[in-house]
C-alpha cells in the first residue's frame, strides 16, 4: 500500500533538497535529473504495486493536452 501520510522526519529539509537539486538547471536537465531520481527510487522501493499506486496518484486529475509521436496503422 502506498503511504500518503507523512513519512519524513524533516519534511521541509527534504522538500528544500528537491528544489536545490534543480538549482540553475535548464528544463531538459531538470527532466533528466527527475527521471534518474524516479528510476533510482522505483528500484529502491521495488514493489510494483506500490509504484503503480504512486503513478496513478501522480496522474490523478490530469487530462492529456499533448500527443505522443505515434501513428495509427491499418493494413
Amino acid at each position, binding site marked *: 500500500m502506498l503511504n500518503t501520510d507523512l513519512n519524513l522526519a524533516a519534511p521541509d529539509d527534504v522538500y528544500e533538497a528537491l528544489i536545490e537539486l534543480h538549482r540553475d538547471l535548464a528544463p531538459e536537465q531538470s*527532466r533528466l535529473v527527475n*527521471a*534518474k531520481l524516479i*528510476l533510482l527510487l522505483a528500484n529502491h522501493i521495488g514493489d510494483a504495486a506500490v509504484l503503480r499506486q504512486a503513478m496513478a496518484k501522480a496522474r490523478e486529475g490530469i487530462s492529456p493536452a499533448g500527443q505522443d509521436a505515434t*501513428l*495509427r*496503422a*491499418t*493494413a
Partner: protein
Amino acid sequence: MDGSMAERVDYQALVLPYARSPDQDAQRPVRHPVIIVGAGPVGLAAAIDLAQQGIRVVLLDDDDRLSTGSRAICFAKRTLEIFDRLGCGERMVGQGITWNLGKVFFREEPVYSFNLLPEAGHRRPAFINLQQYYVEGFLLDRAQALPLIDIRWKNQVTALEPQADGVLLQVATPEGEYRLEADWLVAADGSRSPIRRAMGLESKGQTFRDRFLIADVRMDAPFPAERWFWFDPPFHPNRSVLLHQQPDGIWRIDFQLGWDADPVAERQPERVIPRVQALLGPEARFELEWVSVYTFSCLRMERFRHGRVLFAGDSAHGVSPFGARGANGGVQDAENLAWKLALVVQGQAPESLLDSYDAERVRAADENILNSTRSTDFITPKNEASRAFRDATLELARDCGFARRLVNSGRLSLPCTYRDSALNTPDTDAFDGPMQPGAPAADAPVRAGGEEGWFLSQIAHGGFTLLCFGEEPPDNFPGIRGVPLRPLLVVPAGAAQRQAAGLPVIEDAAGLLARRYDAGPGATYLLRPDQHVAARWRRFEPVLVTAALARATGQG
C-alpha cells in the same frame, strides 16, 4: 548430407520457373485439401510440415524469386529447432553465423551485455545470422524433395470466395487465369496480404515515427560475431546504430535517422558511404550490397482464423525488427498450425481444434508485439518524458546494476508458452521449473541406440510423444484411435541395455533431461507434435493420458 553443389547456388539470383499445371486445363476448378498462398519462410515451412505429416499441399506464389534485399537475418534457437524437425536445420546452422552475445554501448562505453544462451546442453545456439534468401532457399530445396508439395511460381491469387466448406480461388498466371478450390486455405501472403484485403479484413496497430537506414555492407571487419548496439555513438550522434555479422563477409548496419529524414535521399550512396565510413574509420574499405530505408509498425489482425482461411506470418501480424520476432514468430505460427490442420484434414480431430491455433498464436503475437513495442519505445522515445527516462537509464547504467537491466535495445525472440491454452491439461501434481503445460520442450543431450544425440530430434516425428521417466516401462499403453502417440522411455545414463526390446528408449546422457523436466522415476509428459508440453504427471496413469490426449486434440 546436402552436397557441395547445393552450397554454390546463388539463391539471390535464382529464378524459379513457371510451369503449367494440369489444373489449368481442367473443365471445373480442381479441389485440393490444402492450398497455401505465399512461398515466404512461413508458407514454405507450413508446406513442408504438412507434407511430412502426409498432407498433399499446393503452394502458390506470385513471384519467381526468393527474398531480395535486406530482410530477416536473425533466426532464433526455437526456429532452428523447427527447421531441424523440417529436415533443414543443419544446413541453416552450417551456413549461418552463430552468436549468443549482445553488447550495448552508450556513447563510447559498453553499458550492458547479455548472453542469450548462458547454459550448455542445447543442440542449437541462441541465434544464427543468415540472409533470408538462404533460409528460403534451404526451405525450398527441402520442399522440392517432398513429392506431396506442388509449388506453382507466377501464380497470383487475384480473388477469392469463402464458402462454408472451403474456398474458391481465382489465380492469374503468365498463361492466363484459372480457378482452384481448397478445403483449407493458408494465407501466408505477407504484410500486405492481398487475401486479407480481398476478405475485407484489417491488421491494426501503430507506426513508429522514425526511419532506419538498413545497409548490407561487404567488408573485412574486425568485429566479433556478436550483436552490437550503440546509443548516441560519436560516429552517429544522438541516434542509434546496430551492427550484425552475416555470412559471405557481409555486415548489416542499421542507422537510426529520425522521422524528418528524407527516405529517398538517404538511400543514395553519397549519403550512405560517409555514415558507414564514420563507423569503420577512414581506412576501411567496403562495398554496399543493398540499402533501404524503413519505417516500422506493430500490428495484428483481430483473429487469425476466418472459417476455412487461416492467416499466418506477416499477413496476420507485424512487428518492428528489434527483437527479430517477425519471421521467427511466423515460422512458429506455421508449426502450430500444421499438426492441427493435418489432424483435421485426416478426420482425426474436429475443426474446432483450429480455434486453438487462433488462440495460441494471437497470444504469441501479442507477446511479440509487446516486446518489440517496448524496445521501439526505448530506441525511438515518443515524447519528452520517455526520452528523459531513456537517457537517464543509459547514464545510470554505467554504475548502477539495476539500470543496465532496463536498457532495451531489443528483447530477442523467444517462443511463447501457451499458458492458458484450452489444449493444456492443468497440473494436478507439483513440479518446478519452466516445463509447464504450454511450454516449448527444452532440449538436452541424450543417447539413443548407443549414439550421442539430442532430445528434440527424438520427438520430431510429427505426432504426440508420451515421455516416461524411469527404468520400468509402463505396460498397458494408452492412445486414442487415429491420433498417433509414440512412447519414449527415458532411463539414466548407461541403463538402456537393461531394457527389453519394445519401447523406444533414450538415455539421459548428462542427467539434464531429468533436471530440466523436474522428473523423478515415474514422471510422465505428454508432448504435442509441435514439441510443446500438453500435460505432465508424477506417475503414469493411462486414463489421465487418454483424457489429456483427447483434450490436446480438441476432443476433450
